[in-house]
């Protein structure tokens, strides 16, 4: 054999041997790989199951504050800052912004909780993957920055430097990937539950909210409920309320179902408060939204009627009011109801008036320098209640437009009481002097028509249509009128409204009556005796004008024994 053939045979043998070696290696590798495939199937299943369970536990941990990432807990301060509820407050209290109270969980805090769970799942994913990478890449971490080419080269060097790494990757990566996939499936399911549950809950919440709010508003409207401030005289159908936890100074401006709660809301201090005016009124102290004066509990959730009394100095306003309140108190007690003075200051005033009326003493002059605070009187009868606010200004305050301008309650009044002292009329003045009775009683000072004008001419000048309002002309001092020749007939006829009006014209008050008729075509005239003790059914009882005011305001509470209205055929 020549050398060439020998080399050919040897070469072929080497090639065949090499092929066989490679074949055997590949066959061995495939056998190893088959076990790896089996391991993958088992580990993927186990990893996914563990991930699913972890996805259940993770939200629990996060929402108990045990997550690795702090989540945003909304607070009442966030609400006030406008960072929680989209859109501003609507309605009467819009200028105050949102109250200092916790928002409802759905949807406000729920959104933050949802974000927190996702953030925690992301952090857990990154952490798990970083740990797995440490196991896999103990020869060096795979580079994650730089250009693609640089990263590929660096990764190649790392892989070459640690051949066992390839096996580690094959063993660790699949179960970790399956674990994370299971975790995220569970998290997505949790988010889905929260989303669906949240949407359903918010819809229910909206329906209940609308129902409760409508019920509260309609009930209060039916009751003609409103708050009339005794200090600034502002009227509102939406009172503010103080939180009733001792030491808490938070005032809630809109205690209605809304983003801060349905049936109840939680104040910044943690106190749970009723969330409708109807329920709040039974427990919380109302506050005037205009001047923040605290009012009596219950005010604002019942009809409140101002009784504005107008008249010249010494016309008998305070005496009339005192006598009328005492008569009303007696009348309601007889009917099984009652009258309660709602403020300590008012209790002092009414007690003093009661003492003077029952002991037939003369009434003290009302202080001229003080703008009157309303005295709230709660009248109850047959399960109904109404709050009367007696406003007794000194006669000096009806001197000019400027002084009556301070009495803002006149602007919103519906039924006014104009107190007229007949003894100051020229005709009766002559008779008083002739009979020597002038010293027995004080008579009105100044021009009574001017007092009338300072109140009503100003209102008319401010654009208020007086024809839509009503007036009772209360002619006082009937006890003295009865002693005068010109008055005896009037007293004995149990004077009707028109008869009193005609009598006033006859006594020289024709120009004043003419103005009254022009301003108030339906004005009523009463003759009252505030000095004597008359039953409620007596035509001269001071209860008559109060009963009239209650009727005009469509009050459910009325005086039982009030004298029946007496009118003649003529309008008046």
């Amino acid at each position, binding site marked *: 054999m020549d050398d060439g053939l020998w080399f050919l045979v040897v070469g072929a043998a080497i090639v065949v041997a090499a092929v066989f070696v490679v074949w055997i290696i590949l066959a061995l590798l495939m056998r190893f790989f088959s076990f790896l495939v089996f391991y993958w199937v088992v580990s993927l299943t186990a990893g996914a199951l563990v991930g699913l369970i972890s996805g259940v536990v993770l939200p629990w941990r996060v*929402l108990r504050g045990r997550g690795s990432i702090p989540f945003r807990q909304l607070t009442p301060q966030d609400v006030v800052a406008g960072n929680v509820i989209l859109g501003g407050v609507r309605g009467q209290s819009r200028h105050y912004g949102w109250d200092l109270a916790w928002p409802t969980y759905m949807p406000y805090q729920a959104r933050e909780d949802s974000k927190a769970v996702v953030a925690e799942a992301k952090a857990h994913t990154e952490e798990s993957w970083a740990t797995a990478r440490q196991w896999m890449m103990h020869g060096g971490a795979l580079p994650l920055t730089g250009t693609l080419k640089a990263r590929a080269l660096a990764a190649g060097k790392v892989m070459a430097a640690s051949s066992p790494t390839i096996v580690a990757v094959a063993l660790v990566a699949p179960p970790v990937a399956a674990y994370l996939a299971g975790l995220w499936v569970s998290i997505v399911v949790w988010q889905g539950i929260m989303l669906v549950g949240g949407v359903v809950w918010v819809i229910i919440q909206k329906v209940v909210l609308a129902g409760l709010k409508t019920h509260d508003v309609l009930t209060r409207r039916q009751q003609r409920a409103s708050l009339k401030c005794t200090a600034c005289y502002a009227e509102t159908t939406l009172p503010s309320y103080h939180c009733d936890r001792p030491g808490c100074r938070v005032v809630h401006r809109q205690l209605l179902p809304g983003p801060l709660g349905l049936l109840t809301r939680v104040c910044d201090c943690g106190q749970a408060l009723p969330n409708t005016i109807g329920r709040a009124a039974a427990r919380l102290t109302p506050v005037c939204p205009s001047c923040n004066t605290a009012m009596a509990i219950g005010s604002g959730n019942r009809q409140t009627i101002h009784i504005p009394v107008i008249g010249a100095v010494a016309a008998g306003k305070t005496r009339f009011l005192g006598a009328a309140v005492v008569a009303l108190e007696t009348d309601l007690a007889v009917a099984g109801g009652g009258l309660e003075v709602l403020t300590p200051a008012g209790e002092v005033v009414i007690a003093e008036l009661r003492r003077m009326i029952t002991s037939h003493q003369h009434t003290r002059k009302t202080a001229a320098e003080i703008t009157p605070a309303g005295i709230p009187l709660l009248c109850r009868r047959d399960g109904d209640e109404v709050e009367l606010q007696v406003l007794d200004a000194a006669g000096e305050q009806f001197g000019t437009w400027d002084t009556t301008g301070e009495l803002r309650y006149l602007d919103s009044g519906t039924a006014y009481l104009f107190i007229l002292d007949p003894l100051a009329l020229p005709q009766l003045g002559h008779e008083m002097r002739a009979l020597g009775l002038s010293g027995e009683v004080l008579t009105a000072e100044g021009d009574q028509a001017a007092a009338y004008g300072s109140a009503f001419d100003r209102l008319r000048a401010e654009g208020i249509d007086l024809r839509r309002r009503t007036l009772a002309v209360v002619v006082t001092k009937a006890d003295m009128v009865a002693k005068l020749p010109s008055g005896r007939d009037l007293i004995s006829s149990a004077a009707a409204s028109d008869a009193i009006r005609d009598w006033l014209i006859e006594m020289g008050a024709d120009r004043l009556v003419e103005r009254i008729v022009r301003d108030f075509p339906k004005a009523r005239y009463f003759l009252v005796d505030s000095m004597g003790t008359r039953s409620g059914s007596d035509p001269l009882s001071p209860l008559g004008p109060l009963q009239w005011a209650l009727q005009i305001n469509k009050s459910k509470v009325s005086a039982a024994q009030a004298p029946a209205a007496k009118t003649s055929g003529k309008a008046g």
Partner: protein
Amino acid sequence: MGRTDIPPSYGRFRNGWGVVHLSLLGFALLALIIWAASNGNGARLVSSWWATSMRIQSVVFNLIPFPWG
């Protein structure tokens, strides 16, 4: 978390989500167990999964035979 004096309703809602989540998973697991227990579905599923795994392993194992057969 900041403040800890949060309203009790927050805690109730948070527990509620977890309970609903667990309940759903529990119902799913129960349904799976009931399904598995009826007509030998479970045993069939596990044995089928096991057989498939083994078959895949066997196919890969025998993909390249040794030169001597």
